[in-house]
């Protein structure tokens, strides 16, 4: 806001230093939309959420009394705490699997696939984004459900005589769908960092006595560490906040912390919902802080 006003005064005020000042301020004008957007759509709402989390709800109305009660309440209910741990657990497992699948894919793509064919393959990775998120999650119902593809196939082979419900409405289904949803993020991020790798280095490592696995772990992985961490961040953090996937394919067994937040807000317990939201946000901030050093390549190469 203040920079906006400053530009205006500088532009109108007469004087010799005026053009310099104007151009100096002018170079910041480009930031104004971003600052406005960030301020109005992020910082202000965040402030409101912070306040809410320390306020109280009485008879479905928010009362401006400062209290730690919302946080205390969350940690006092065993089911909430265990949902928190389960969310963390699901997010870690889904991330590990998604990255575990994305790494060999990115490795294979950048090492063995001719450049001409890479772009179509990368497009194939992105193709799912052309369909809406909701549609992609719902489509899993037709695969895993009682009348779904998996059950029909099992019935056709004669392995089962009646449809099984075990494929849906529990954590495994949630993890499967999350892996499917977030694999492209991991694959694209990893590919862009592996692509620049000089494969002669792996040959050199093997020439010097390293096994293929040792060469990958000691030579390739340390050099693409920033890419791996970015991939983990792109996959892990959105999964922490997921609520549609567990709601659609997770059933009661697959509840995640996002569903708790939604429930609180739907039941007009805004202050408790705000507290949980902030717990998740705080956790993510801590996580990014821990990873911030590993994201710098400069340090690793000493150049």
């Amino acid at each position: 806001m203040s920079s906006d006003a400053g530009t205006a005064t500088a532009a109108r005020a007469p004087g010799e230093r005026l053009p310099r000042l104007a151009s100096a301020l002018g170079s910041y004008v480009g930031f104004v939309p971003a600052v406005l957007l960030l301020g109005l759509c992020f910082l202000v709402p965040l402030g409101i959420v912070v306040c809410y989390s320390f306020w109280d709800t009485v008879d479905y109305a928010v009362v401006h009394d400062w209290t730690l009660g919302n946080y205390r309440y969350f940690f006092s209910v065993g089911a909430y705490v265990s949902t928190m741990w389960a969310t963390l657990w699901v997010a870690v497992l889904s991330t590990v699997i998604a990255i575990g699948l994305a790494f060999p894919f990115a490795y294979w793509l950048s090492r063995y696939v001719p450049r001409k064919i890479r772009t179509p393959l990368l497009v194939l990775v992105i193709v799912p984004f052309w369909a809406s998120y909701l549609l992609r999650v719902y489509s899993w119902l037709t695969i895993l459900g009682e009348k779904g593809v998996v059950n029909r196939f099992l019935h056709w082979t004669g392995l089962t005589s009646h449809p099984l419900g075990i494929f849906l409405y529990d954590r495994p289904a949630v993890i499967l769908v999350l892996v499917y949803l977030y694999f492209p993020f991991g694959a694209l991020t990893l590919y862009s960092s592996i692509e620049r790798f000089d494969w002669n280095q792996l040959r050199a490592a093997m020439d010097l006595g390293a096994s293929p696995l040792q060469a990958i772990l000691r030579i390739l992985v340390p050099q693409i560490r920033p890419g791996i961490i970015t991939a983990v961040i792109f996959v892990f953090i959105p999964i922490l906040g997921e609520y549609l996937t567990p709601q659609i394919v997770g059933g009661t067994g697959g509840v995640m912390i996002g569903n708790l937040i939604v429930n609180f807000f739907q039941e007009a317990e805004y202050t408790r919902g705000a507290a949980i939201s902030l717990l998740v946000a705080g956790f993510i901030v801590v996580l990014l802080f821990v990873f911030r050093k590993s994201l710098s390549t400069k340090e690793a190469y000493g150049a």
Partner: protein
Amino acid sequence: MTTVPPLADADSRPDTAGIDLRGVVKQYGTQAALRGLDLQIRDGEFFCLLGPSGCGKTTTLNLIGGFVAPTEGEIWIQGKRVDQLPPHKRPVNTVFQSYALFPHMSVLENVRFGLKMDRVPRDVSSERAAQALGLVGLEEFGSRMPAQLSGGQQQRVAVARALVKRPAVLLLDEPLGALDLKLRQRLQIELAQIHRDVGTTFVYVTHDQEEAMSMADRIAVMNGGRIEQLGTPEEIYRGPVSRFVADFIGDSNFFEATVEGAVAQLPDGSRVACAGGRSGAATLMVRPEAIVLHGGDGSIAGHVVQTSFLGSYIRIAVETPAAGAPVIVALRDGAAVPALGEGVMLSWTAADGVVLEPGPAA
């Protein structure tokens, strides 16, 4: 020199030292990269594989290093058959064209890497790595990162990293290709010195004939997946066996000729001296510095179309009806230089007129 312990297995032949390639064929699909290569490289030799791109020299190097498997044939190193062994099980290390230093490790860590993979204790490996760095004159640079070194220094780190494992054979894949001329010449001297110091067999791939000539004990000139000629630099320069080799190594003049004994008849009817060796239609090859500029018996007439001062020698081009292209003559600095357009007589001694199979320019 490492002594190979006597091995009980039937594959070992302790009598053959060095590298032995027997009937090696390498096919890529229907394309033959090597067509039946037989090659013996002596223990401790500085050996050069020389040829244009696509001649099979790099394939040969990769076969010795174990990065590609032969389609047919056997590869022996120090009396042990290795063609079925993976790279890290062969007594061979490689200096790569792009150096392939590990950018996330210090120079010392780079050099130590091979020893670490062999589980050499840390104190021993650090000492040997420091020694290897000393060998290439970089003992002060152990704690630097590769990105902080110049191209020439990176190259020397790559040599130290490969030599630290004391391989029986060091393979060098165009290691000086990325450097400028001055630095290349200096490193040629250094590499030859390092070779004398360690006594390891060096197998060096290059397309640069000067590089090969300046360092190698012996050179194999390759063309189209075959060895065209094998010998010392001098043997190859003075007695090329084919027009390809003569053309590839040094400058040369070619004449279509009909040879009888030690006399060659050129298209314009003049008769010149030659070394003989075959009769009938042939290609006569004469090096520019072997030609002298005075007349007499057995000389050809022409006129000067170009003179160039090149520092250490003066190059003149002479147009003559005896040859299709202008004949290049290299005159020592200080010799009398004919004027442009002046008529000259060219001659050479019989030994300098090398008779080759007839054939068009390669």
